[in-house]
């Protein structure tokens, strides 16, 4: 048991994207004797890596972890509806920190479309409720828009730059200098090679002087410069007082936030075949669209 706990902490610290960890290395089953354990290893197969990696790619397919609010019948219907929606638009893989372009139809300008370019600051909630926020600075004015991921008014989601950041949420960009969240509206997409690792952008952000929206110094952020020069003596003392470095060793806290490995592999194996089919259909559509544009007619 002790050995197992040590392993977990090591693996946790190495993970960069810890927001959707939702993956426990401890088994939910009761502890077995050594002899019985070796027998079970032969019987049960380990879940494939392709399945377990899907938790980063499609985090909204995992249900919310509170066991009192969960229901297997409702979750299955919800997953089916999400896949039905995915047949209509291509919802690509994206993370907090990557740059998106989103076009949406607007009831107040009928017959036209509305588009917005920005950094993804946060991704929240699960299922059909899942949503994300985009941020940009336009004419020296910071703008943030919250979108539902499965809103039927969305026409297209385009990833201009696929990358990760050092933190789970980039809400601190509100109080950072505006140069970190200004993005060119006419930006062209950067294409990554398929199958490679997703690059991590390790920029460290400089903050504006007070006042701030939140107490950033207490949140243990990695992508922010040393904040001590902004703080007075009182705030430094309060930071030490409210610090809780033992939280990462709390296994129960992690258990309540996450969903077990066995359950995850069940969920993803259910949707694995259909979601791959849908992705291939979208690829073929995109190819067909490119061909028609790339052949201009010669005149004379």
């Amino acid at each position: 048991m002790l050995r197992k706990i040590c392993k977990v902490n090591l693996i946790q610290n190495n993970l960069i994207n810890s927001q959707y960890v939702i993956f426990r290395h401890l088994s939910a089953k009761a502890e077995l004797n050594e002899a019985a354990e070796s027998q079970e290893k032969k019987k049960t197969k380990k879940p494939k890596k392709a399945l377990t990696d899907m938790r980063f790619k499609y985090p909204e397919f995992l249900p919310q972890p509170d066991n009192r609010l969960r229901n297997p019948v409702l979750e299955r219907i919800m997953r089916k509806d999400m896949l039905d929606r995915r047949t209509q638009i291509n919802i690509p893989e994206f993370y907090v920190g990557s740059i998106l372009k989103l076009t949406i139809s607007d009831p107040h300008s009928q017959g036209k479309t509305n588009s917005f370019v920005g950094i993804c600051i946060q991704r929240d909630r699960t299922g059909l409720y899942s949503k994300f926020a985009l941020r940009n600075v336009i004419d020296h004015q910071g703008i943030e828009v919250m979108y539902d991921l499965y809103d039927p008014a969305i026409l297209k989601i385009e990833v201009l730059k696929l990358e990760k950041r050092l933190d789970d949420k980039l809400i601190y960009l509100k109080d950072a200098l505006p140069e970190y969240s200004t993005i060119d509206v006419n930006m062209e997409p950067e294409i990554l090679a398929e199958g490679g690792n997703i690059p991590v952008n390790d920029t460290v952000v400089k903050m504006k002087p007070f006042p701030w929206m939140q107490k950033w110094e207490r949140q243990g952020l990695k992508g922010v410069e040393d904040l001590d020069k902004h703080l007075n003596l009182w705030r430094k003392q309060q930071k030490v007082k409210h610090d809780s470095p033992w939280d990462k060793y709390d296994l129960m806290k992690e258990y309540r936030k996450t969903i077990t490995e066995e359950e995850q592999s069940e969920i993803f194996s259910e949707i694995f075949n259909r979601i791959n089919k849908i992705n291939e259909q979208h690829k073929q559509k995109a190819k067909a669209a490119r061909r028609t544009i790339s052949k201009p007619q010669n005149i004379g």
Partner: protein
Amino acid sequence: MLLSRAFKSLLNQPVINDIRYTQVCFHRFRSVPKLRIPEWRFRVERKIKDDNLTSENQKFIKEVVERDFGKQVIHKGVETYESKTLLKVPEIEPKTWKKGTIRCGVIAKKLGHYPLWKKDGTRICTTVLQIVDNHVIKYIPPNEFEPKERRPLKKYDRKGCILVGAESVDPNILTANYMGMFKGSGVMPTKHIFRFVVDDVAALPPGTPLNVSHFRVGDHVDVRGKTVHRGFQGVVKRWGFKGGPATHGNTKTHRRPGSLSSGVKSRIWKGKKMPGDMGNSWRILKGLKIWRINTKTNTMWVSGYSIAGNPGDLVYVYDTILPLRQPKEPLPLPTFLGDESALPEDIYEDSIHKFNEPSIIYEPEK
């Protein structure tokens, strides 16, 4: 290894259940609301003793249950027994519905919240109710139906009553008296039982299953449930009083009710809002629209988030009594009698955007 062997030897020893201890009961500060069993129903679960049955005997009991009631299966998302030999559904004649006739209700389970989008792009909040394996157990005609609790009420004059059961259960847990209620019906004993007061026209013979096709998309519905029990609460939470200010020299009057009455009256009015036990009471939400129906899992999407109870609790669903939300077309009486397998899996209201439709585009007005 040694330790594990030691534990194993401990586990294999027979467990001693004969230790008796005296329990001392103190006077309580506040009596917890008592669970009252209605007069027409017997106690459901029997007192289970540890009979120290051998594994062979337990197997034998399982065999007997399977012989009488069939094997355990999952039917429309609910665990039940396939009681094919028991159920003999008689033929029912369809009747014409008039305005004001009261049909049978349905026992459902509250599953959770669910967002749906309309075709004009607005999002609506709905809750999902699942109808859990309902069967009619008994019909009591109006001349025999004499409820002792509310006899003087006019409401029950010339009306019958239908007993409906939900979620069939292993009969080893139940009492003999409760099992007797199911005797002539041909229905397997159920965990939950409820009675619906009904017009004579809407009578149903025992054994008929009640499914989600009993209701239609676009109609309105009343939902009755028990609210969440919050225990003994103060006046701010229970009645929404404002409380006192936090600062400016205030001491000990932050969440207090203030004065209770005027000096002239010199007593407290009846029905004064005070601290006390909150929740755990019946509430009915009226006039909820049905937006979507799934016939495969017996679920229906009903507007609003504020249906009483936690997810997983039971609720009771009726047709509305609100006069302005009565259905325009006649309802199926006594239930839906057509072929249920011919219905589509998902039935939507006309204004709802289906998930497999292309995304919304607003066309300019001409």
